[in-house]
């Protein structure tokens, strides 16, 4: 059972303190400190902001487990996990910069407003120097903007929209997760091999920013290899029954259905598509196929047998065979009795990377951390060699193409790795049109 001390607000110095314990007002200044929430005691507080209620609660829970594990490893407890395989050896298991790591948690409810409120409370009340986690792009962009203003570091968690490191990128924010463009770049060759280059694709797209950017990316990549996009239909987020969107696919002449859905939407639209017998259809003399560009273990488990043979992509998977992955899966599995999900991996790695950057920079000052993370290259955290690109704070690494397993042996064994797409293949120029607009701006130490 893990134990850690009650979270206390880092003591903030405030100008001159009067003799009788009465404060002399420092009129409306905020420049008395070096940077926001500078830790002055023997501890440093990290904020883990994940969905604990709402449809993504399970994913949030898994992220929380991973972050708790990361804190343990940072403080020198447990088996050290990926600290042993990480190429940078700055971390010594004595916390960060000698300060014991504590954490506070918040509930994003997968709503931009609530996520910002809980992040603010962790920054303002608990003195968190960094916010980590989240399970949707809307939330990630909203919280990233907040952290930029407040002067703390934001590590994004699960966010797959191109905008997070595109038009909404911020200097104080980093993303370890991959994005729609990278999914498309990794999937296209595999799809071409599996299904040929003469295909007619029908897109169903969740009607919000993430859906739009992913659809745009997938359509561009598949069209480049010869596929035709028959139609793109936007579906309301609140939909629970997709039958009226699936039925028109039957006679549309399309022979591939691309589901740009995530979470509950994905589970339901895939289930409905299977109900309508799409995967048993022969169209244009070809077997009808379904593609789910963004997979997650939890959603695959939710969709059950319906994912069999369906191709998609992932940021990371516990079945990878490199040392880092194995170390992480072992320590996570032993503690929680289940393999970690890819969002759990992202949050775990981001916590370690943040700590490592602080060590290397020698400070918790966000500007120092930004400098240390920009252009940082490392290995030993799964997915081979990884780069945190300086221009847009997007992380580049190998991308996994996955397929629903035909005969899963247990509930964690729903997907199998089809291909590990090398990093070079998913890279793009920082000024790629899909990522245009927006700028990182200057780093903000806050206070």
């Amino acid at each position, binding site marked *: *059972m*893990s*134990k*850690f*001390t*009650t*979270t*206390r*607000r880092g*003591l903030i110095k*405030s100008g001159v*303190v009067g003799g009788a*314990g*009465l*404060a002399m*007002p*420092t*009129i*409306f*200044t*905020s420049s008395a400190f070096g940077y926001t929430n500078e830790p002055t005691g023997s501890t440093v507080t990290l904020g883990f902001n994940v969905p*604990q*209620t709402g449809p993504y*609660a399970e994913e949030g829970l898994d992220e*929380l487990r991973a972050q708790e594990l990361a804190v343990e490893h940072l403080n020198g407890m447990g088996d050290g996990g990926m600290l042993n395989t990480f190429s940078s050896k700055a971390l010594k298991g004595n916390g960060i910069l000698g300060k014991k790591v504590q*954490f*506070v*948690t*918040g*509930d994003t409810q997968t*709503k*931009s*407003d609530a996520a*910002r*409120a*809980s992040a*603010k*409370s*962790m920054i*303002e*009340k608990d003195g968190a120097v960094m916010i980590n986690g989240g399970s949707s*792009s*809307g939330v990630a*962009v*909203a919280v990233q*903007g*907040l952290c930029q*203003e407040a002067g703390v570091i934001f590590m994004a968690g699960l966010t797959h929209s191109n*905008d997070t490191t595109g*038009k*909404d990128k911020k200097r104080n924010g980093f993303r370890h997760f991959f994005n729609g463009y990278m999914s498309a770049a990794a999937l296209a060759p595999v799809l071409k091999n599996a299904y040929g280059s003469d295909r007619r694709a029908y897109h169903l797209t969740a*009607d*919000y*920013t993430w859906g739009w950017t992913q659809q745009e990316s997938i359509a561009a990549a598949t069209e480049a290899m010869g596929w035709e996009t028959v139609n793109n239909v*936007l579906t*309301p*987020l*609140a939909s629970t029954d997709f039958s009226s969107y699936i039925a028109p696919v039957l006679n549309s002449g399309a022979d591939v259905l691309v589901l740009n859905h995530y979470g509950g939407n994905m589970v339901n639209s895939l289930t409905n598509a299977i109900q309508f017998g799409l995967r048993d259809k022969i169209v244009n003399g070809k077997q009808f196929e379904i593609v789910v560009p963004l997979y997650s273990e939890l959603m695959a488990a939710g969709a059950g047998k319906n994912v069999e043979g369906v191709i998609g992509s992932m940021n990371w998977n516990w079945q990878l065979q490199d040392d880092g992955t194995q170390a992480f899966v072992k320590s996570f599995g032993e503690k929680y009795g289940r393999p970690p999900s890819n969002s759990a991996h992202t949050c775990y790695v981001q916590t370690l990377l943040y700590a490592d950057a602080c060590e290397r920079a020698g400070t918790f000052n966000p500007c120092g951390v930004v400098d240390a993370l920009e252009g940082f290259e490392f290995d030993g955290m799964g997915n081979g060699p990884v780069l945190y690109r300086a221009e847009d704070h997007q992380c580049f690494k190998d991308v996994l193409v996955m397929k629903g397993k035909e005969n899963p042996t247990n509930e964690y064994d729903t997907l199998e790795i089809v291909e590990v797409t090398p990093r070079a293949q998913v890279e793009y120029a920082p000024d790629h049109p899909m990522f245009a*607009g927006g700028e990182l*701006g200057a780093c903000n130490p806050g206070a």
Partner: protein
Amino acid sequence: MFGLNKKDSILMIAVAALALLAPFILNIFPNDSALAFFNAGYPDLMQRFVIFGIFAIGFNLLFGLTGYLSFGHAAFLGVGSYAAVWMFKLLNYNVVPAIVLSIVVAAAFSLVIGYISLRRSGIYFSILTLAFAQMMFVTAYSDLLGRWLGITLTNGETGLQVYNDDPQILLGNGPNVPHLFGLEMRAKEVWDIGPWEFTLPVGYYLCAVLMLASFYLAIRIFRSPFGLMLRAIKSNQTRLNYTGLNSKPYTLAVFVISGMYAGLAGGLLACMDPLAGAERMQWTASGEVVIMTILGGAGTLIGPILGSGAIKYLENVFSKLNEGLLHDWFGFMPDGLEGALVWVVSKFTGEGWHLTLGGLFMLVIIFLPGGLVEGGNKIRSWIQNRTGRGSPPADTASTPAE
């Protein structure tokens, strides 16, 4: 005082004192004590207390006085936020034009929606307001209106925010964060007094002053002939009609006033944090203000403020109570007992805070139909009975007539 009778003046002064001293009252536990977790005196939450207080006060003017239950009031808060952020995008970060426009836009929306919805009463009115609000929510969430017009109007689920390449024609060298003629909203004054630490944020005090103004206005409306007519509408529309009065202008007027309160609240939310998210227009957000008002005590002056405080406190403090903290607190107990206790309590805190909310809410509705205000009155009369002083006020001694 200021046209208020003695009782109302006392109430007004009490609320003003609470609002001004909130940074101290809410940080009552010393910083290093374990109870510091329950402190709520940090800028964001204090601002939410008063902003949602404004929202609930306005909602109570409509619901508490006329009995018309709007299930779409969050939509006006939402348009207020969008209006304010658009002001930041187009002019500059000064909060004055933002707040003014947010009130004006909310008034315009509530005028149109109220005019149509008030043609029906009872649950039909509720469903009409709900339908309008949900339409506005999905329109904002997928930015349908922007799509029809070919521009970015609400920026979808990400929320509308200010970008560096926005026009901001009056920005000049002004601050790059919301400010009141140069006074930054996020600026704050921190006082260390012994083991305590108190934060006095500028943004909070702006909100608090506006909340007090809203509260004062609400008292005046409650005590005015206009307010009397509104209460008459709730009590007996038939008699009002046979007194030669058409209730529609009255209900529409108060609907618009209450929409403006919501717009002000939305504008202030954007001023404290310049991002307007679509979720704040969803039906659950509308339901939240209903819950706040009834939890505090609908139709009472102070009720909505208490209700909004209670809900926001629960949402922001209970949801952060994770198992690690619980283990820490109960660590002094024997292991088995500690585990059991943590298991039970953790179902109600952290990710289980919704359960606490739902349960608490049921208890209040079942046992205190008049909300927290009734609870307060009961305690007061209980104390008076025990000490043998005073008697219950005459007007509560009502007996069913038929």
